[in-house]
């Protein structure tokens, strides 16, 4: 059984717990062990980078240092956490001056980090470590041509483009096909969802979110799948508001790619929490 250290991230403890629960269930169904990192802290997200670059890096370095005690790979399901942790690794490896400051800070917490942890997104683990054959084998309830718009957002493949193409990612489209679904044309697959601008400047946020919903619906999709809790929340929570602003009905079920996988694997509601959704996900998959 392949085993990874697992970083759930704050959003997954409550607001987006369905992502955590369904990810753990899918991992178990595929014989992958996710060991939750002991005493992990918030990655700092883009908000901390905005306020204080150094402290933000230290927060991520603390997680990397904790992971290094037991693992050489740290898996996360949140694209935001993934990018911040991954980026911290890159900066520490390439910039000795920053490294020195962060080492000093870690020392104050009785920790040290030697650069020995690779940060992975769970999607990357599933598509590239587990792969098509094992995923297809686990399917007991194929999606029977369900039309799926795979939404990647920003921070999964940008800026580094290591998991997928930075402009036109496709890995979740493949995944949807392995489950028996049909990926739909979706030009806005990697544009910004609006994220926190929905809170700070709703007009700007709503126009970004609207373009994505519109693009998915015009492509003929029955649903949107996401690989990031912030994208998920933004796309599912504001559909009414966005419809009003755009002057057209933009309503579509939005779910985590892990929920779609789990459903195709025949997993139960308790293992997937489809009813947590703010959109018509349970009806879509019943």
């Amino acid at each position, binding site marked *: 059984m392949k085993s990874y250290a697992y970083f759930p991230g704050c959003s997954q403890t409550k*607001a987006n717990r369905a992502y955590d629960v369904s990810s753990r269930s899918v991992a178990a169904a595929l014989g992958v062990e996710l060991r939750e990192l002991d005493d992990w802290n918030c990655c700092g997200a883009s908000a901390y980078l905005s306020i204080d670059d150094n402290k933000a890096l230290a927060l991520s370095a603390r997680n990397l240092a904790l992971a290094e005690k037991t693992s050489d790979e740290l898996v996360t399901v949140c694209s935001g956490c993934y990018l911040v942790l991954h980026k911290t690794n890159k900066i520490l490896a390439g910039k000795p001056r920053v490294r020195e400051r962060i080492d000093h*800070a870690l020392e104050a917490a009785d920790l040290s980090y030697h650069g020995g942890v690779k940060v992975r997104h769970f999607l990357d683990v599933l598509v590239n470590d587990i792969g098509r054959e094992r995923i297809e084998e686990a399917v007991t309830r194929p999606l029977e041509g369900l039309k799926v718009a795979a939404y990647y957002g920003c921070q999964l493949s940008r800026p580094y483009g290591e998991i997928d193409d930075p402009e036109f990612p496709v890995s979740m489209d493949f995944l949807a096909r392995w489950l028996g679904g049909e990926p739909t044309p979706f030009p806005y697959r990697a544009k910004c969802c609006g994220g926190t601008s929905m809170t700070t400047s709703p007009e700007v946020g709503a126009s970004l979110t609207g373009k994505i919903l519109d693009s998915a619906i015009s492509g003929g999709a029955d649903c949107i799948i996401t690989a990031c809790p912030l994208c998920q929340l933004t796309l599912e929570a504001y559909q009414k508001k966005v419809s009003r602003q755009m002057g057209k009905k933009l309503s579509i079920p939005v779910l985590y790619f892990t929920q779609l996988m789990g459903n195709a694997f025949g997993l139960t509601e308790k293992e997937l929490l489809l009813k*947590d959704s703010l959109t018509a996900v349970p009806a879509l998959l019943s």
Partner: protein
Amino acid sequence: MATISTKELTREFLDGIYDHPDGEKVNQCLQCGTCTASCPTSEVMDWSPRQIFAAVRAEMLDRVLGSNTDWYCVSCYSCTVRCPASIPITDVMYLLKNQGIKHNLMPRGTRGAKLSKAFCKIVSKGGRSAEFGLMMKYYFSTNPFAALGNLGFAMKMLGKGRLSLGSEKIKDVKGLRKMLEALEEISA
């Protein structure tokens, strides 16, 4: 108001950006405008991403910092992956936000800054973030009445069991705070 000269601002900015991989490349901007054309929010920015690099060169960063530009950046990295000079533009935006906060050089009432500040306070205190506490802090620092507009959403999340009303804490809060304090000592 700013007590720092524009020359010093530029120097501090360059110092910070050189700490990022490819940071030295800011000096090689071609003024091609690819960043601005790729940016989903450039239309509402006072200064476009391209203009920032012109401003760095002209040592006019104070004007950029006094504008809404960096706070409209949504960190989508579209500019960064397309820049022909490989300039880490998103990191530039982060650093401008850092400087704006540090020297109090922002347009009044910048909401993005208030949200980020509220977030950092919560994380620095307990090591984890929680949406409810964050939104309360944010709305009280901006417009408490706006919170009412989002009441429906909050109730929906509560009904689904997706809203955490308490605060989350890690075990080694002490260690985490010491770590952050150590950085404050260095910068002081």
